[in-house]
């Protein structure tokens, strides 16, 4: 590694100073405050009473929290790989600049511009019994209709479909940006070897964008762990709590029940969970031998 030219210089830290200020004031400080809140029995309106770790033990003993935890893990485990794979596929398919591909890029991105209220409104039309798109299709095919939004298992699946549809734009765009940064000479060399497209994909394309794959995966893990609006609006966490994600649990505890301390404790736990998941992913992907570094 040619480190010599990067003379270590404290002055270089000036580049990060503006962001670091925002980070400390707007993120780190409120986070520590919230940790402080999590040690109190407190509502939204006033000073609380110090209770130590009681809120944490209450959260961890709450079967609803544990169920929400399982739901969230399951959701992340299914939605993130789907988003990464589909995003990569679309980027590969649309990686050239013609009128057709620009049109398709715009099209696949267009769902991302919608707000969560609208996304759920749309997908409700697809899933709802009687009038919905899927029930109508099932009926035509003579299949037994499934109440997607009110059957255990299917409700979280329905939320996942809506989420993938909504969030696909970002992975696709990040992969496209990465693909376009691959130097053309790599492909020229492959062309001279008469390599098959599949081999080119595995030997050149994927290794070149390994960093982006890691980036997209981590971003998606972080985002999908924070699932909330889709579940709240499509299924309200039901039936029997099988589609209630952790953030919804936090919202119900802190805002509906005014149990701010317990809500804060749950949100610190969520923070730890996301941190672990992202770190694991980061370690796994940086350990892989990279072709270009």
């Amino acid at each position, binding site marked *: 590694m040619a480190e010599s030219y990067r003379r270590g210089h404290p*002055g270089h830290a000036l580049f*990060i100073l503006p962001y670091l200020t925002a980070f400390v004031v*707007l993120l780190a400080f*409120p986070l520590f405050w919230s940790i402080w809140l999590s040690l109190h029995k407190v509502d939204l309106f006033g000073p609380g009473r110090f209770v130590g770790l009681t809120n944490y033990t209450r959260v961890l003993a709450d079967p609803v929290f544990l169920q929400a935890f399982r739901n969230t893990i399951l959701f992340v485990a299914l939605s993130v790989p789907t988003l990464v794979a589909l995003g990569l596929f679309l980027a590969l398919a649309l990686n050239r600049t013609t009128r057709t591909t620009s049109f398709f890029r715009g099209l696949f991105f267009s769902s991302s511009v*919608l707000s*969560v209220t*609208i996304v759920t409104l749309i997908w409700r039309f697809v899933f709802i019994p009687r009038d919905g798109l899927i029930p109508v299709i099932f009926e035509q095919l003579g299949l037994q209709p499934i109440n997607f939004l009110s059957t255990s298992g299917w409700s979280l699946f329905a939320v996942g479909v809506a989420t993938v549809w909504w969030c696909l734009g970002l992975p696709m765009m990040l992969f496209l940006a990465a693909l376009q940064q691959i130097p053309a000479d790599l492909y020229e060399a492959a062309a001279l070897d008469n390599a098959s*497209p599949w081999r080119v994909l595995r030997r050149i394309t994927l290794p070149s964008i390994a960093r982006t794959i890691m980036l997209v995966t981590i971003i998606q893990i972080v985002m999908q762990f924070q699932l909330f609006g889709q579940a709240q609006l499509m299924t309200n966490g039901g039936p029997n709590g099988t589609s209630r994600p952790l953030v919804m649990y936090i919202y119900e505890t802190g805002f509906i029940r005014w149990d701010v301390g317990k809500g804060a404790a749950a949100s610190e736990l969520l*923070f730890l969970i996301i941190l672990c998941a992202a770190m694991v992913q980061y370690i796994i992907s940086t350990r892989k031998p990279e072709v270009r570094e």
Partner: protein
Amino acid sequence: MSRDQSTYRPETLTASRPLLWIAALLSVVMMAPVAWLVGLSIKNNRELMLGTESVFRLPYTLVNYVNILHSSQAFGWFFNSMIVAIGQTIGVLVLSSLAGYAFARLEFPLRRTIFVIVLFGLAVPEQAVIIARHQMFNWFGLHNSHLGLMLPGMSSAFGVFLMTQFFRAIPKEIDEAALLDNASQWRIFWKIMLPLTLPAQATLGIFTFLHAWNDYWWPLISATKKEMYTLTIGIASSQTNFAQSEGLGFLSAQAVFASLPVLIVYIFFQRHIVTAVSGGAVK
């Protein structure tokens, strides 16, 4: 040689026809719900209440859109959303580019430690900080102001992470050459590096704008005066609690109305990505 180059441009190797066909098929699945939404937005509320299949029948009407424009506050909300989204986007782009460049290509004390701490920030869910933030902004009197709506988004570690990754991907030879010319770090950043990251800037810009535009929780509890509502909050506030059954057409029209500006911003940025890349900047 030039012939070879044009035949084996990177895109031709990855974007083959069959892939494109599958993508086209997928796009139908993608678009059907959106088309449905647009269809609903040009139908009368009363008709939809009886059944949504009336979308496939005449008559169509623009009355829902006219009603949005009649609501005297829609333009004010639109204006608020624009200011907040643009302000936040500029803020995030500036902060993330500076920090990303330093983390990726410069050496300074505690660089790795600080970077890891910032990455920790990526994992902080909004719910973990929103109550404390609300109280803090209350002290500073920042509620019900554009600045108060813009600021929280600027602390997002997402942009820094993204830009760091992109700056790292730029070959080292480029700034090595510049350093030999004795250019200052600032000059290298501004004149050489920044232009190379335009695709990433565009991506980050679009997503910050989108996020700010569709943000719900923070504006809901920070902008509680109707003059300061963003479009998302304003639209939600004007719905009755029975909107899904009684005002479906109006609801859909509001959705289309609120989404259009973002789509336009995207189309605008997308053109820039294309020019930045096909200009061969990274060659």
